[in-house]
């Protein structure tokens, strides 16, 4: 029982990342009608925004090490620390949350440039061509990151205040075995906030309503009086920011490397398809569902019965769902059929 | 009517809450041309869609030539001898006109699937001659090597007609076959359809153009709001007060 709850918790944070990526993917699908294979790369860029922030904050200078007196010793001290003392150290500790401040403008810029510079020219072209050009872009982005940050994963520490584990089991009287890293809990909460914010934006603002109307019926929404171009830019940038934030905050959970985006992209596509192409709720539900299923499948008890199931469960579920419910969990007919 | 080729019996179809077809009874006799007329949204195209297997009816049956065809896939229904001209032309835009007409000829000869991967198209001279003949009949032979996408809408429709005719179907369903055509082309199409009649092909035709309907039809069914409100010979239908009221009255 404890193990079960633990696995659900473990699945939740992965599911949250899937949900955030898939949300943007399906939003772009539904609104712009574009299949964006570079969406995973946006997640990866977000993660590297966290890396960059951390590197920027820890830019160091060499100072005399005062603790060593019998010869001249030097040590690396971050500028921030040497300027601000303890305050600086605290700022450095919180580099990942602070990286949100960097991620949002960067992803906004990336999103707008991508939409204006490339995606825009592909609205009228076939899905195959959209897939191909964004696939090319994904390779380019990941290679640029590889050239800058190298091929190895770059670990980014979570703030020390939330470094340990929360004994969730004791909170709910379920036994001490259930403990859960604080940062993952933070990530989960953060994701829920973002999801809520996006949904609130789409449900409550006039703009959001036009976007949702546009996802339902792409032809007629032009009549509603909102500039299509503007809507497309905003939606794409929003999707990029959501993916980027998901990536930045995920960095302490999984040290980012350059092919992180590709790894998450394939799964996110599966998530979108399982949820139903163009369905926002479906994407979120499927994201969490697949995240949890994946962590169940990696339990030793399950693996001993079905070896290797953890490696393929997501794809297996996708195949079964697509065959049983061809439109996905919450999809509607006729989207992206040709 | 024992020699009915197509027998639609108690067919119901609704979309969401909307009733598109209610208790449709329709019998089409062999060799006759049966027109279905009615105002827009009366359910005419839905009825044809049910007949060719595009839409499954909620209840009721469609029998063709002694075979129950409800629930069977469209390609099997076609193989039994039902061909259809669509309201918006369904052709192969990326193939030449000649290829467009040859593809259905292969379906007629080879059935739903044949893996003739290593034989050559060159050797199919019989089918090619037949296809050229059909293109000549519909007046498109001079364009035979053009891509079908380059045709005008009216020409696409005639191409589609040729694609159906090459299969020598027992039953031909035509959904507004002359829409978008000039008067001259319309008359040519009427002549062509009359010729087919002489060969003994059964036709069901949906048409708004009363000129076309009354020059071709042997029987007419009037559909309004998903129900057949009148059926008879052209003269009977023309004289029916209900039809006048529901359809002709407003328009003519």
């Amino acid at each position: 029982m404890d193990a079960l709850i633990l696995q659900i918790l473990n699945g939740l944070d992965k599911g949250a990342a899937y949900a955030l990526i898939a949300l943007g993917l399906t939003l772009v699908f539904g609104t712009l009608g574009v299949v964006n294979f570079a969406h995973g790369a946006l997640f990866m860029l977000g993660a590297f925004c966290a890396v960059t922030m951390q590197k920027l904050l820890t830019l160091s200078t060499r100072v005399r090490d005062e603790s060593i007196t019998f010869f001249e010793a030097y040590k690396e001290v971050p500028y921030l620390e040497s300027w601000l003392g303890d305050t600086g150290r605290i700022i450095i500790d919180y580099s990942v949350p602070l990286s949100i401040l960097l991620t949002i403008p960067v992803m906004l810029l990336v999103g707008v440039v991508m939409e204006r510079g490339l995606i825009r020219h592909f609205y009228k072209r076939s899905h195959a061509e959209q897939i191909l050009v964004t696939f090319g872009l994904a390779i380019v982005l990941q290679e640029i990151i590889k050239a800058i940050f190298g091929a190895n994963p770059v670990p980014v520490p979570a703030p020390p205040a939330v470094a340990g584990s929360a004994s969730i089991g004791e909170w709910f009287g379920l036994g001490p075995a259930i403990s859960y890293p604080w940062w993952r809990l933070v990530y989960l909460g953060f994701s829920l906030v973002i999801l809520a914010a996006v949904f609130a934006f789409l449900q409550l603002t006039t703009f959001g309503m036009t976007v949702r109307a546009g996802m339902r019926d792409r032809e007629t929404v032009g009549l509603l009086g909102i500039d299509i171009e503007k809507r497309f830019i905003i939606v794409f940038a929003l999707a990029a920011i959501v993916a980027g934030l998901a990536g930045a905050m995920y960095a302490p959970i999984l040290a980012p490397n350059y092919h992180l985006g590709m790894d998450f992209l394939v799964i996110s596509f599966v998530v979108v398809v399982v949820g139903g192409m163009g369905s926002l709720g479906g994407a979120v539900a499927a994201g969490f569902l697949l995240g949890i299923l994946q962590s169940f499948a990696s339990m030793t008890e399950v693996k001993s019965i079905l070896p290797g199931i953890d490696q393929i469960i997501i794809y297996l579920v996708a195949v079964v769902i697509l065959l049983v419910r061809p439109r996905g969990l919450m999809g509607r007919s006729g989207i992206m059929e040709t | 009517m024992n020699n009915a080729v197509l027998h639609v019996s108690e067919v119901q179809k609704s979309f969401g809450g909307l009733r598109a077809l209610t208790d449709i009874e329709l019998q089409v006799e062999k060799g006759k041309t049966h027109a279905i007329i009615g105002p827009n949204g009366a359910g005419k195209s839905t009825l044809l869609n049910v007949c060719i297997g595009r839409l499954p009816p909620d209840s009721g049956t469609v029998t063709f030539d002694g075979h129950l065809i409800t629930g069977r896939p469209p390609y099997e229904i076609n193989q039994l001898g039902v061909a259809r001209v669509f309201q918006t032309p369904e052709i192969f835009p990326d193939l030449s006109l000649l290829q467009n007409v040859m593809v259905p000829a292969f379906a007629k000869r080879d059935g739903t699937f044949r893996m003739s991967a290593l034989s050559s198209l060159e050797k199919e001279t019989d089918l090619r001659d037949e296809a050229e003949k059909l293109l000549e009949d519909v007046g498109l032979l001079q364009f035979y090597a053009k891509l079908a996408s380059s045709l005008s809408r009216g020409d696409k429709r005639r191409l589609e007609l040729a694609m159906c005719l090459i299969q020598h179907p027992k039953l031909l369903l035509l959904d507004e076959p002359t829409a978008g055509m000039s008067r001259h082309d319309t008359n040519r199409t009427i002549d062509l359809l009359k010729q087919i009649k002489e060969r003994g092909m059964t036709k069901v035709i949906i048409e708004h153009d009363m000129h076309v309907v009354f020059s071709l039809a042997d029987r007419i069914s009037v559909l309004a709001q998903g129900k057949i409100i009148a059926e008879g010979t052209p003269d009977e239908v023309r004289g029916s007060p209900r039809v006048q009221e529901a359809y002709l009255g407003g328009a003519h």
Partner: protein
Amino acid sequence: MVKKVIQKIRKAAISDPDFEVSTRQLPPRGPETKPMTPVDKDWIAIVAFTIIILAMPWWLQPLGAAYPDLMQKFAIYGIFALGFNLLFGLTGYLSFGHAAFLGVGSYAAVWSFKLFTMNIIPAVLFAMLVAGVLAVVIGFISLRRSGIYFSILTLALAQMCYNLAYSVLTPITNGETGLRVLRDDPRYLDAAFGTEHQGVLLGSLFGERMVGYPGFYLCAALLIIAFYIALRIMRSPYGMMLRAIKSNQNRMIYTGFNPRPYMLTIFIISGMYAGLAGALLAITDPLAGAERMQWTASGEVVLMTILGGAGTISGPILGAAIIKYFENIFSALNDSALASAFSFLPHSVQEFVVTILSPFVGEGWHLTLGLLFMVIVIFLPGGIMEGIRRTYRFLRGHGRGSKSQTDLQAAE
């Protein structure tokens, strides 16, 4: 006489996949231009292709690519792309999981070496069989959907194969180390016939070891056969049906065709081409690893095909050769090689050029590849063949005098 010419053009109109009459006029231009029928053209194409391929060791010399290892790769990936194009080019179904068949072909060939014999014939047949069986399974599932769903299903299934090869199937695939041929493998057939193997274990054909030039000629011969079969398929009624499915699947159904068996058969054929390519990879280097199945490898074959020109017969082979050529050149380059290449420039300019170029070569080859991918899709969606055809049309439209039809064929 004129009537005969008309008939010949008519013949061309039905079976030449690239035929477009907008550039050819009716009635014919005159009795002195005798357009060849596609059958004649096909024979010229095959003979020309054979000569071009077999003469590669000579004409690739000036390009610095005339060594067997590289030419072998051209041929192998040519086969892979040719098969992929039969699916994508004809039917428009974009498979993003074709590398799975390549990888499985390699594993099957190595197992044939391990279990049966070092003779390559069983290895090739076994690899194609296994790839074909896998294609039946994957095709049966993913062909239930079309469009983007099909792409994602193939991607998911191939990714599944890749993950399995790394985890549960390690006894068969030897996981990350890769599957190798070992000296103490049973090789029952060889043992039965008392065949002994000296030196490094390599695939062999009747005693001839498939390394160096024999290896290249083996791959070249199979490429020519594969080319011939692909050409026949494209020109056949079956090929026309596949194009018709791409053009309007709906009409196909109401015309009395069941598209499913058509799609499944071409998917299997395409998978077997990939299996053959995988087997050849294993024959020329008896090692099989799971990385061959990764989806970036699937992306690579897509790129080869569109770079050359999807739907054309020789485009994909050209695309494969170009990519493998540049991969070979670019990935071998480094800063010092660049510096010597630009040594004719003034020193400061040279340094600048080297700094600009160095991220694109060596390790950065994939960056160049990604950029190339984007440039092709954006500016030349028809690929190089489309570019050649446009140039040809431009020249013919502006230049005086008529070029014969063979020029067009050669361009193809």
